[in-house]
């Protein structure tokens, strides 16, 4: 059965190896230019005021190939799990059901359970290995660039680094197998897999991830010397958002609150903030109000706890789906 | 060696047809004493029929004393059905061929020839019986 699984999967294996090798070459070739730019901008020794050094570093990188590769590599890691689910997972069982070859396989001296288990295990292992390698390579390669761009914990970057892509890929794969088994038509299963996978991943990114680990909550006195946003709308309603010094953090919410804990909405005093007022008068007036900045965020050191939690969830779902597949194959499939 | 053929529309059971063909071949001298009949596998490889049919035919022939089965070797003819009249077969066949040519030349169709022959044959056989 292992021989058969390998034989049916031979072409995909070679394509994957080729693609990984090609990407590997690209990363190896462009890696040194990043290190060089990093050293040249002296980012390591920049201490607390790194703005200029980082700028220089990034500009240097953008002039070379590494800038494009950075975007490309992240895109690849983002897309690969979906591709695996759609092209490896969905056809795995669906194609056999469509062509009737499952009736050929199930009459050989191998039980249905072993048939399914071998397919899932062999290709699942291949998936984990390939995506693991891919993610490790890109995460290592992009280390300095991620830092310079504000940290790996930011949503889109997070999804393409560390072990999370492996969790996504395994989930997508088993999801594809499940859809294929239930729908019994390859193309329809591929579409369904893509739809459900996208929904799951987007839900996780947008709504669920931030709750996986308890976020940090801090309240500082508002320093309005350089606000991130100061806006006066209709009826003198104000929106004030201060800047913060949390580097490499994923900020979930940044609000300006009064001493009662309510969000500050003004009203703006026309004497300081009206059209007749002096240039910095509004800022200074806001400063004098004793407002505070309320920050909810995940600091950089939440990266690995979040990665583990999210990967764990997707792997757990994958295992549940796999269990369902075994049950369905034994009881319901003909 | 004899080669069998089956007529699905003759109304005669397949195993009977095989038996008849063996007897026929023996009468015509195509199968002589000591000749081997084709193996069951050989027969069914050419004529797609149930092996049991062939076995049944061979068993019947053995019961009639015409053949004998030697286990592990094959089935062999044990008698001759030809008699002294075999020598006459040759010239008689020639005459038959000539007669057929004349019938054809006279404009008889195949069905007419067959009907003429069969009715005359039957009448004569009954007379001489």
């Amino acid at each position: 059965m292992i021989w058969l699984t390998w034989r049916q999967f031979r072409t995909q294996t070679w394509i994957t190896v080729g693609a990984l090798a090609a990407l590997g070459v690209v990363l190896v070739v462009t890696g040194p230019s990043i290190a060089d730019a990093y050293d040249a901008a002296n980012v390591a020794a920049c201490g607390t005021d790194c703005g200029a050094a980082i700028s220089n570093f990034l500009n240097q990188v953008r002039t070379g190939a590494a800038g494009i590769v950075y975007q490309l590599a992240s895109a690849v890691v983002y897309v690969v799990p979906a591709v695996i689910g759609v092209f490896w997972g969905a056809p795995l069982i669906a194609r056999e059901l469509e062509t009737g070859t499952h009736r050929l396989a199930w009459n050989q001296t191998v039980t249905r359970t072993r048939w399914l288990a071998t397919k899932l295990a062999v290709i699942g292992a291949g998936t984990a290995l390939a995506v693991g390698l891919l993610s490790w390579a890109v995460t290592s390669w992009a280390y300095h660039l991620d830092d310079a761009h504000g940290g790996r914990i930011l949503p889109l970057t997070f999804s393409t680094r560390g072990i999370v892509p492996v969790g996504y890929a395994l989930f997508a794969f088993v999801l594809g197998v499940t859809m294929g088994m239930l729908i019994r038509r390859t193309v329809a299963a591929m579409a369904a897999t893509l739809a459900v996978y996208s929904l799951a991943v987007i839900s996780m990114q947008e709504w669920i991830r931030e709750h996986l680990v308890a976020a940090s909550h801090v309240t500082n006195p508002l320093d309005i010397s350089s606000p991130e946003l100061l806006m006066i709308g209709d009826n003198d309603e104000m929106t004030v958002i201060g800047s913060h010094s949390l580097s490499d953090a994923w900020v979930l919410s940044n609000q300006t609150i009064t001493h009662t804990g309510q969000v500050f909405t003004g009203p703006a005093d026309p004497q300081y903030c009206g059209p007749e007022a002096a240039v910095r008068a509004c800022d200074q007036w806001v400063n004098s109000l004793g407002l505070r900045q309320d920050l909810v965020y995940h600091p950089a050191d939440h990266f690995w706890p979040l990665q583990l939690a999210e990967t764990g969830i997707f792997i757990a779902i994958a295992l549940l789906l796999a269990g369902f597949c075994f049950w369905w194959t034994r009881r319901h499939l003909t | 060696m004899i080669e069998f053929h089956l007529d699905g529309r003759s109304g005669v059971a397949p195993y009977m047809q095989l038996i008849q063909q063996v007897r026929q071949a023996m009468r015509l001298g195509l199968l002589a004493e000591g000749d081997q009949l084709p193996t069951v596998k050989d027969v069914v490889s050419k004529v797609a029929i149930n092996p049991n049919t062939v076995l049944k035919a061979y068993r019947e022939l053995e019961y009639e004393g015409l053949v004998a089965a030697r286990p592990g070797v094959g089935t062999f003819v044990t008698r001759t059905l030809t008699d002294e009249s075999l020598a006459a077969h040759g010239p008689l066949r020639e005459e038959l061929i000539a007669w057929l040519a004349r019938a054809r030349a006279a404009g008889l169709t195949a069905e007419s020839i067959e009907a003429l022959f069969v009715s005359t044959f039957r009448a004569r056989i009954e007379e001489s019986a």
Partner: protein
Amino acid sequence: MSRPVLQAEGLSKRYGRRLALSDCTLAIPAGRVVGLVGPNGAGKTTLLHIAVGLLPPTAGSIEVLGGHPASGAAQLAKVGFVAQDAPIYAGLSVADHLRFGAHMNPGWDQRLADERIGRLGLDPSQKAGKLSGGQRAQLALTLAIAKLPDLLILDEPIASLDPLARREFLQGLMAYIAEHDASVILSSHLVSDLERVCDYLVVLVASRVRVSGEVDDLLTNHHRLTGARRDLANLPTGTEVIEESHIDRQSTLTVRSTSPIDDRSFTVEQLTLEDLVLAYLSQQTTHPQPVLETTP
């Protein structure tokens, strides 16, 4: 008396409200070539799928070669199966299929498989997807045969083949069972396909077994009676009417009786197997009850 190769008692299969098999009882003896005949939709594929363990029955019991169909590797090794349309892996070559068989079956006879492929003139390196219909069927049969099963089950194996391919398929199948002691169950919707090779017949119509038995016995026990039009109550006892047709002053009956028919007012004729099956096919509309099988 060896044990039956397939024994079913009250076997039924229901899909939602549709009954694919109703109350089928069979005792098929070993060493036969069995023809399973019936129109499309009669339940032949369902019965065969249950026999090879692809489907569980809804009611009743079935035993194949003394074991339960879905019971595991040992049972699977004893039964060779070719599903309808002979599914094979289009992307794998002929040789790959043999390797597949060798890997998956402990009882695999590689020499037999190679010899058959050679005799059939198949190119081992050819992708199976490029084979003709007849060649596919032969490849699928080779896969089923080379694990040396005690029972071969073939679902409409020659339905979509041209006459030459049909002949070659049956030749190959008969050659195999001539050398190896195996039973075969073949299904078809045309009895003419199977007449030459079957010595046991099962007629399945509208989910029920109508008649089953040795072909010789069936042909001995069934006759066509033609005579003056009459009331059917006057037939000799032990005679069962399978099909009747009355035109003007003549009645034509297809009957089954275990004793010889002495009634001189009838002309008694032999039936062909096709006539017999057709009579049972027409029975479905008039007598929906199943008929008892002949003694095995």
